[in-house]
C-alpha cells in the first residue's frame, strides 16, 4: 500500500496540469489615466498557482508596469488584499483553480481607500483608525514585579481577534466604510476587541468610550461582508456585536 503511493507520487509531481485563464485587471496610472481602465491578460497557469503567481507572471513576463503590494506571499503579512471576482481576498491565498476559470477573473484594488496605482491604495486612513483605538496593552505596574497571570479560559476569550493581520480586507468590504470614510471600520474594532476582553488590560473603559460614537461600533449595519472577507476566519461581526454589548453593560 505504502509503496503504491510512493510509486505514484513522482509521476503526479512531474505533470502539473496547466490551463488558460484571462485576468481582467483594473489598471490606473495616475500620471497617464484620468480614470481607471480594464486590461485583459491571457495566461497559462498551473493548477497549483494562486492569483498572486499569475500577477507575478504578468509583471515579470508581460507588463512590468503592473503595480501591486505583496511581501511574504504566505497569508501572514497582509499586504496583498484585493478584490478578486468582486470579493475581497488575499491574492496569495486564492488558488486560481478554485475560481470560475471559464470567465475572466477580475482583479481590482480594495474599495473605499484612495486609489494610488493599479492595485495599490493609500492605507493611511485605515491605519489611522487602527491607531485611534489604542491597540496596545494598557496596564500599570504589577505588584512585586512578577508576570501578569492569565488562565487559558481568560486567554480564549479574545483568541479569535488576535489573528488579525491588518490586511484591510474586512474594512474595505464594508458598505458603510465605502460611503462614510469616518467610520472606524471592522479592523480597528477587532483590534480594540483584542484588548478590551484581555484580562491583563486595564484600558477597556477608554476604548469603549472611543468606540461608543456615531462613527464607532454603532455604524455597523451587520452586513457580514467583513466576516466573509476575513482571510484569517475571524468572526468580525460577532466581535463588533460583543463590543456593542460591552458598551451597553458598561464593562467588558
Amino acid at each position, binding site marked *: 500500500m505504502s509503496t503504491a503511493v510512493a510509486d505514484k507520487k513522482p509521476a503526479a509531481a512531474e505533470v502539473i496540469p496547466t490551463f488558460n485563464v484571462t485576468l481582467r485587471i483594473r489598471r490606473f496610472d495616475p500620471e497617464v489615466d484620468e480614470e481607471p481602465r*480594464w*486590461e*485583459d491578460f491571457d495566461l497559462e497557469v498551473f493548477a497549483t498557482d494562486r492569483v498572486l503567481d499569475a500577477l507575478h507572471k504578468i509583471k515579470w513576463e508581460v507588463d512590468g508596469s503592473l503595480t501591486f503590494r505583496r511581501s511574504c506571499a504566505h497569508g501572514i503579512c497582509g499586504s496583498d488584499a484585493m478584490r478578486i471576482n*468582486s470579493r475581497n481576498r488575499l491574492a496569495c491565498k486564492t488558488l486560481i483553480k478554485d475560481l470560475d476559470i471559464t470567465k475572466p477573473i477580475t482583479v481590482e484594488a480594495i474599495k473605499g481607500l484612495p486609489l494610488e496605482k493599479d492595485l495599490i*491604495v493609500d492605507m493611511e486612513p485605515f491605519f489611522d483608525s487602527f491607531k485611534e483605538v489604542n491597540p496596545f496593552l494598557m496596564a500599570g505596574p504589577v505588584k512585586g514585579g512578577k508576570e501578569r497571570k492569565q488562565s487559558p479560559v481568560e486567554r480564549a476569550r479574545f483568541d479569535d481577534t488576535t489573528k488579525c493581520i491588518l490586511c484591510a480586507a474586512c474594512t474595505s468590504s464594508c458598505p458603510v466604510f465605502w460611503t462614510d470614510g469616518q467610520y472606524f471600520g471592522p479592523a480597528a474594532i477587532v483590534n480594540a476587541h483584542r484588548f478590551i476582553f484581555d484580562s491583563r488590560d486595564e484600558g477597556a473603559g477608554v476604548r469603549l468610550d472611543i468606540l461608543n460614537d456615531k462613527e464607532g461600533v454603532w455604524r455597523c449595519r451587520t452586513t*457580514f*461582508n467583513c*466576516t466573509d472577507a476575513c482571510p484569517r476566519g475571524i468572526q468580525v*461581526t460577532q466581535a463588533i456585536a460583543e463590543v456593542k454589548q460591552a458598551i451597553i453593560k458598561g464593562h467588558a
Partner: protein
Amino acid sequence: MPEKSASNLVAEPKSPSKIRSPKRPAGTLYRGNEGMWSWVLHRITGVAIYFFLLVHILDTALVRVSPEAYNQVIETYKTPVMGLGEIALVAAIAFHAFNGLRIILIDFWAFGAKHQRAMFWVVIGLWLILLAGFIPRQLMHVFGG
C-alpha cells in the same frame, strides 16, 4: 470620497491597451452574501416606508383642513393600482419588521451573529407565509368587486 472610481460600473478605457480592452466588464458590484443583501433590502424598504408614512400623515392631516378633499383622496386609494401598491407596502413592512428582529438578535443575542444566515432564511420564510396569506385576500378585495 477621493476615489472617483468608487462607482460600481467603471469607465471605458481611454486608449487601446497592449493586449485588448474589454468594452465594459460585467459588474464589479461587491459580491456579498445574505447579510449584505438583507441590509440592502432593509435600507430600500426602510426608505420606501418612510415616504409612505410622509404621504400617510399628510393625507390624514387633510381631514382637519377639508373633509371633502379627504374623502376624495381616500376614494382614489380604492383604485386597483393603489390596491396593488398596498401589496407592495405590506411586503415592504413585513420584510422590514422581520429583518429588524433578526438584526436585534444579531446585536443582543450571544449566538445571533453565528446564526445570522439561518435567521435570514427564517425571515424570508415568515415573510412568504405572511404574503401567501395576504396577497390572495387582497387581490379578491381589489378585483373581486
